[in-house]
């Protein structure tokens, strides 16, 4: 600390740069490495399908980003996506309704779950981890009751012994399978939602309020921020994003898979957390979350193409995560205020 201050500042600038661009560099390096060593990796088809798989994770991660911005956590995000999957399937298969109705039903379901979380956290003042954990269990179980624990698929037999009247609307399947030019819809959706989230969080008054609440709720309240409203809104947005993620999942599977969404919770948390530190911003943010989802996507795609088993992939995912973190936190002076469990 005794070195002359100009040199010091220069060194800090470099460190900041390392942190700010470190994750991007890691991501690009990995991308280039896989492109160079696996010819099939660099085909546009492979890249788009990698992006497609990343899209669900990214979208759920964005939802989590809002909740984390207000200093919360939503453990029910994965089960909400699962609920969306089933809602869509039931709307079309059980009730023989159109794709549009299914989309509306799913979005409504996501928003309702968000409202439930908001109610418990904001009105009942239950700590977020606990409230959303409870909601997670309830959704996970309750969604299976009307279907007796079975996946919903066209032609299945209903409780009264008759076959289900509907099937998946082909228009609905286009959500995942359609594309504009070579770019699949889910990828477009991911990008649009990232830009929208970034814009809201970073550029608008409302985004500022989300972050203010996360930083000090009491101080925000005394500065005139409607804390309860915005905290609630964050959960509703998270439910909404989870529903959108679920829509993509169900139109990909083409059935109401009872297990869909189960692994989404940890992934959403992971990418939102990675996003927090990825760009040296030190708080949950949209581009960081996107980057996190892409990094995970690249690692998984690359390693699968190189013929590694899933457990090598888990190991690699963890190692990349840890290395990238050591990189940003140990090298940087930045403290991550938003992301400790305490």
């Amino acid at each position, binding site marked *: *600390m*005794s070195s002359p*201050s*100009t040199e*010091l*500042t220069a060194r*800090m600038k470099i460190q900041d740069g390392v942190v700010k661009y470190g994750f991007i560099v890691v991501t690009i390096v990995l991308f280039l490495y896989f492109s160079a060593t696996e010819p099939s990796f660099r085909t546009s088809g492979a890249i788009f399908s990698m992006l497609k798989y990343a899209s669900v994770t990214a979208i759920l991660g964005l939802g989590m980003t809002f909740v984390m911005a207000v200093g919360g956590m939503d453990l029910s995000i994965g089960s909400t996506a699962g609920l969306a999957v089933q809602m869509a399937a039931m709307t079309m298969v059980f009730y023989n309704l159109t794709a549009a109705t299914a989309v509306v039903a799913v979005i409504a379901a996501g928003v309702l779950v968000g409202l439930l979380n908001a109610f418990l956290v904001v009105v009942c003042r239950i700590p977020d981890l606990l409230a959303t954990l409870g909601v997670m269990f309830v959704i996970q179980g309750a969604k299976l009751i009307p279907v007796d624990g079975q996946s919903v698929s066209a032609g299945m037999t209903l409780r009264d012994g008759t076959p289900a009247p509907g099937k998946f609307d082909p228009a609905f399947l286009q959500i995942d399978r359609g594309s504009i030019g070579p770019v699949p819809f889910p990828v477009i959706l991911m990008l649009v939602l990232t830009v929208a989230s970034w814009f809201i969080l970073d*550029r*608008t*008054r*409302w985004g*500022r309020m989300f972050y*203010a609440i996360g*930083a*000090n709720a*009491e*101080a*925000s*309240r*005394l*500065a*005139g*921020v*409607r804390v309860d409203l915005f905290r609630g809104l964050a959960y509703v947005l998270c439910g909404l994003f989870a529903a959108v993620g679920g829509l993509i999942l169900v139109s990909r599977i083409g059935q109401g898979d009872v297990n869909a969404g189960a692994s989404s919770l940890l992934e959403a948390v992971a990418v939102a957390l990675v996003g927090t530190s990825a760009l040296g911003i*030190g*708080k949950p943010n949209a581009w960081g979350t996107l980057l996190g989802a892409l990094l995970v996507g690249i690692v998984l795609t690359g390693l699968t193409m190189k013929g590694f088993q899933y457990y090598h992939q888990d190991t690699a995912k963890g190692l990349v995560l840890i290395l990238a973190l050591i990189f940003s936190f140990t090298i940087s002076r930045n*403290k991550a*205020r938003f992301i400790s469990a305490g």
Partner: protein
Amino acid sequence: MSFGANQVLRGVTMSLLPGSVTALLGANGAGKSTLIKILSGAYGGNGGQIRVDGEPITIVGPRDAARRGIATVHQRINESIVPGLSVAENLTFEEIVQGDLPAVSSVRGLLPRAREVAAALDLGWSDARLRQDVFELGIADAQLLLLARALVQHPKVLVLDEPTSTLSQVEVARLFEVIGRLRSEGVAILYVSHHLDEIRSLADRLVVLRDGRILEQQDAPFDMRSAIRSMLGESILGDAAELVEQRGEDVAVELRGVTLLPRSAPIDLDLRYGEVTGVVGLIGAGKSELARGLFGVEQFPTGTATLDGRAFRPSSARDAIRRGVFLVPEDRAAESMLPGWSIARTASLPFMRQVSRHGVMDSARERRMGATAIERFGVVATGPDQSLDTLSGGNQQKVVVARWFQEKPKVMLLDEPFRGVDIGARHVIATQARQIAADGSCVVVLSSDVDEIREVADRILVLVDGEVRLDDYTTQIDGEDIVASMSEVPQR
């Protein structure tokens, strides 16, 4: 010692003598707290040397400092209180940590020692109080707790960083008594305060720090004018500006039958535009209740309020702000600061509409807004992007006060606005408050410090136990009357 590019201390050499009180003076951001943190081991790694009893030592951490007999009460209470533990555990916390108390003990087992510690300042807390979560204590009681904790350690060196900024006269007197006793027992004491009268009555020596350098050292009796000059520079203080009384005519807020504290009698009160009303009272007199009630973050148990003759019952801070009632809350860290936020962002939070269009923030305008606040209140900072956390206590206070002056209020409530600010800044804040009153606002300043109030207010209200004891224009009453009425025991 430097933080990044900001070199805070530049070759400070000073000594503390046994049995004497050395006062450390300096404007906000001069480096006082930093110096103290080095002394107490909170910051390691600096170019200098510390000697105790003539013997050079290195202090690698707070434990080390404590072992060397250096006890410190830091400026920010939040840096020292441990919520979730009981009052008793907090009172004995350092002893628990150092292993001076039995390693195994229930809270009950700690009570005797906790009582002893509390007795150091005659706190007289009941066992029920001692068992309470420390979180339930008010900010003043928390400060007393920390002082008691430092005082009983029989330190060789006692360091107090603005210990009185949250205390009222009674507690200050009690504290001084204890400091006097320790001095006579041969303890070396380093005392930081912005209250010159405290320094005059307490200190044996005085050291003035400015921009990280020692500019002046004096032995008692002090030449305060010279000290202030070296502290703030020539320009800032001419003669202490004589107060030009302003008397308002129109009533802004009318309170009828309002009870401030659960047990107090209802009061009626009119607050007028165009003047500064000072509300003074001991800790717990209900000042904050008055301010928070008006601001809508707490509801008065009974009574009604009107603003401009219309019913006024805000249900939230937002409501109050929209009707032109602003509040600078008393607890800076808990109620105003957002960890990691820059000056500009902190300043714009209540008035983001000013710097946004259709909800979209204009960051250039926002930074300009921050820069204006910095300039207007003379905040010592590197610019509007500096994080508020890294400002000195007084400069943080200036920012959180300044941000409410960015729009013209109907009613401006300032709860302990002078907490931890130097005299220069005190004048700036007082002048700004008087200025908006002259421009037609109704300004209410709440404080437990009579001198501060007399410096800023046109009209003074004395609150005792939630009831108005005295209400008159400043020019009509002298300080002694105020102090006398403040400690009056209410008849019940």
